[in-house]
């Protein structure tokens, strides 16, 4: 591990003031410390933000929730308001990591965890995300866990979070504090696709700090989080589907879908939702939705199976979300 300076910030303003090039914020450290040991990341300065008091979940006047960036994943999953109003989020959190990790990992940190691509973790391998311009070892290598949607010729990494997939389906917004003040960004806009700059993963500017995630009012309807994985404990999603669906009078009145394990960001495709909305649930409709979702999907060898797996899983989730809904 490279030597670094350590600053413990006592206020958001102080943290943001200290932030910038070469500095990294640290909270739970469940991903950053591993990456620093391997020198995949080697910040000059760590700014400890654990004392900033951003660990509250507050109800908003509009019925939404403001989740502090430092709320531990375990606490967020167990929160009664979340479990009642946004159960897909609680389920997604509990599908991720392990009990020990969820105790340490925070909301903001979870959004910013790095890909689990084997070659990203291997400093001897070329990786455009770790070292821009060096190439991508995964493309022609072993890529079983990597992406089939939203990837580029430069990077096929996936975003590993479960939590973010649920937040994506819930139309969450990210509250960001920077030297110029506070701004809010829709989660869908928060992540950037790799294109030819896979090392730039979000719209965060240097030194900006996530302070909260805002959830709109509880959406109601049926919530499903289906995670397909290689083992039942502690494995990242091969594919995951978050679904919030409302069926009225035999018709899918509203539906939101987000996907994990497939893309560089929690994936959402509004065309799939539009295709489903207003329709009577049927196997044929679900197959059509899967076809639309996967129209552009591209496997790279060992991850080819993700395409049929996603199709099957989506059809199954839609069936579950609309079960007993026939008019």
């Amino acid at each position, binding site marked *: *591990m*490279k*030597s670094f300076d350590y600053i413990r910030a006592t206020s958001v303003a102080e943290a943001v003031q200290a932030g910038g090039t070469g500095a990294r914020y640290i909270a739970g450290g469940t991903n950053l410390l591993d990456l620093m*040991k*391997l*020198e995949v990341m080697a910040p000059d300065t760590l700014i400890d933000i654990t004392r900033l008091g951003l660990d509250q979940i507050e109800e908003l006047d509009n019925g939404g929730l403001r989740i502090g960036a430092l709320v531990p994943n375990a606490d967020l999953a167990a929160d009664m308001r979340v479990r009642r109003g946004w159960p897909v989020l609680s389920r997604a959190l509990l599908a991720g990591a*392990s009990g020990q990790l969820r105790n340490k990992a925070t909301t903001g940190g979870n959004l910013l965890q790095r890909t*689990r691509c*084997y*070659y990203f*973790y*291997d*400093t*001897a391998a070329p990786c455009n995300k770790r070292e821009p311009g060096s190439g991508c*070892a995964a493309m*022609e*290598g*072993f890529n*079983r*866990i990597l992406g089939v949607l939203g990837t580029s010729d430069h990077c096929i990494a996936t975003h590993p979070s479960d939590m973010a997939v649920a937040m994506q389906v819930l139309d969450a917004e990210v509250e960001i504090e920077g030297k110029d003040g506070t701004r809010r960004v829709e989660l869908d806009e928060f992540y950037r696709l790799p294109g030819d700059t896979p090392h730039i993963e979000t719209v965060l500017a240097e030194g900006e700090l996530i302070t909260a995630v805002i959830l709109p009012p509880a959406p109601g309807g049926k919530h499903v989080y289906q995670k*397909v*994985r*290689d*083992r*039942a*404990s*502690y*494995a*990242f999603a*091969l594919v995951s589907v978050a679904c919030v669906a409302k069926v009225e009078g035999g018709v899918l009145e509203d539906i939101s879908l987000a996907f994990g394990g497939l893309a560089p960001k929690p994936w959402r495709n509004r065309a799939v939702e539009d295709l489903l909305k207003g329709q009577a649930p049927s196997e044929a409709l679900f197959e059509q939705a899967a076809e639309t979702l996967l129209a552009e999907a591209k496997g790279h060898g060992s991850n080819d*199976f993700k395409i*049929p*797996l996603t199709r*099957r*899983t989506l*059809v*199954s989730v839609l069936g579950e979300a609309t079960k007993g809904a026939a008019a």
Partner: protein
Amino acid sequence: MTNELTLDKKADTRRLDEMAQGLLGTPMDRPEGVLKVTGKAIYADEERPSNLAYGYLVRATGPIGRIVSTNKDEIAKMPGVVAVIEEADLPRNSVQGATPTAAPTRGDRIDYIGQPLALVVADGFEEARHAAQAMTAVMEADTGLHFDPEAPGASIETPEAKQASQGDLDAAMASAAFTLDEEYHTSSMHSAAMEPHATIAEWKDGKLTMRGAYQMLKFNQKSVSDALDLDLSQIRLLSPFVGGGFGSKLGIAPEAIAAALASKAVGRPVSVAMHRRQVFETTTHRSATKQKVRLAADKDGKLIGVGHDNLVYNLPGEKFSEPTTQATPFTYAGENRVIGHHIARLHRPAAGSVRAPGEAVGATVFEMAMDEMAEKLDLDPIEFRVRNIPDLDPSKGIPFSENRMEAVLRDGAERFGWKHTKPKQRLEDGWWIGTGVAAAVRVNMMSETSARVRLTQDGAVVETDMTDIGTGTYAILTQVAGELLGLPANRVETRLGDSDFPKAFGSGGSVGASSSGTAVYLACMELRQNIAAALGVEETDLTLKDGRAISGNVAKPLTEIVPGEGWSATGTVKGGKAGSLVRQATWGSCFAEVAVNAVTGETRVRRMLGSFAAGRILNEKTAKSQCIGGMTWGLGMALHEELVHDPRDGHMVNRDLAEYHVPANLDVPQIEAHLLMEDRDDWANPVQAKGIGELGISGTGAAVINAIYNACGVRIRSLPGTLDKILAELP
């Protein structure tokens, strides 16, 4: 006093059954258990001698070839760096198990990606690690290397001594009523013991002390002697607690020799602990296998032909090759037999022994094939196996010391509630449910081992350089001594893992318990003679219980019999003709119920049950734990474990525990292991005990694979059975 026994014949008495203490065989807690759960057991890298320096191995990142130069001089100037040990005699990889010589040395070559290039020594661990990560080499790359055993042009050896044939298998296959001819694959796997390999080396007055995580001190000490050109008397190895080994700590690993070299160079004690990623690459792992199984059976389901051909790999220069077919020659009947063994020479990291080398992958695949064959014959797979239990070892024509295959199959079947069913019968809530069975079999071996027992007025002290790698050695040797000397467990102290103690074979090959148990038995029998002589009675008339000696109408506390200075006796057991006059093996059965997701192909094991026979059980709890652990490994081999080599340069891609999946809590259901407690094998040794540490993995994974077929009708012939392989065939 010494008592030496060479095992040339069947034991003619079962003296342990005549003892009165009632300690042996009981599920006694480990005497060192409290130390372990309170953090007071000192493992390899937990001592902190003053002035300790830290070493970190430098990973060769490739290309493979000749080392032209390194940036050693720059590294030596980095903050905190004390020395850069970059010598041609750094080990290339771990020594193979039970090998008394040094590992191949680095020389001026890198033979595989991940090989130790150098060791950086610094005042602090992070300084050493940072500098090690900055070290690079200029290489002259080799050309024409191979990384895949099945790639065209790979160099394949077919050693004559490892091929066997009898009768005419081709003719049997042509004439048989039923045949099977299939190809199977198992993946590269790693022991991934919880405790990473580590050594603290310290020189004092020309003597080297190494505190480390080692399984076999006798061999390890000789390897160190060979590597560093030292007399054995100059080397002391200490390994009182080992956090799992499973074969990866049989032979001394590169960090140990590097630590010794570094400590000498810098004149300070040096700690070298491997990172998990280094453990994967520089210690030995289990070779992937390709196995071709041929079976021929007559119309009654009697096997008339058995063929088992396999391809494994290793680095050039390594003598070990996975003995895949080790149990095939004797497990099932069949007069026409062919064994084939082929070794690809590849530039992947070195392969070596991992828990049950041979049977773990060989018996597992064979048990998958047996299930397929039973289906062709339309037979209950248990009946098919029972019909083919041979009367004599069909390859050597010698009798079995005992064959408990049918007993464990029947016992397991009854406890599990086994019912033979057709595949694809139960679909519940979107999951296909099925059950499967497999037999487990593992050869039983013996190797020279000594132990010393000192009996004083306070009690007994057992000493041997045998190790406890989590297996329960402290418990069982305490129990053997306590039983024979009539002492409760709290008056017996067992001391292990010090190379100054009498030499044992060590923990490997499931030999440890029976060999060190027998050595302690022999020493205690000598001490019983002393007690009997002091009382003026025959040893056979002596009853020892709770610190008292009883004979006829005389009862006396040992404190009044044993002289103040105590008595000491050493027992030594050696393997002899008993190992070749009869076929010795241990036997097991495993049953599994699985659920296969009808949409995703995910498999979850719902329950597992095993029944095992391994002669006398020394401690019911630790023996069961071995079986449960082995079955968990079987589950992992069946569903999870897959060490992936990059096809371009052979490097291990998923070399950490996040992506190298072993079964974790939610993946492991309630596992029941049952032991045939009344079993005794008189041919094994006078304790009548055989090894049980590896039996639990020697075939059991097949029960899971066979259950997958029963559940959803998909035959997995390539392990692990991940969902992508199942998905492709689901409706």
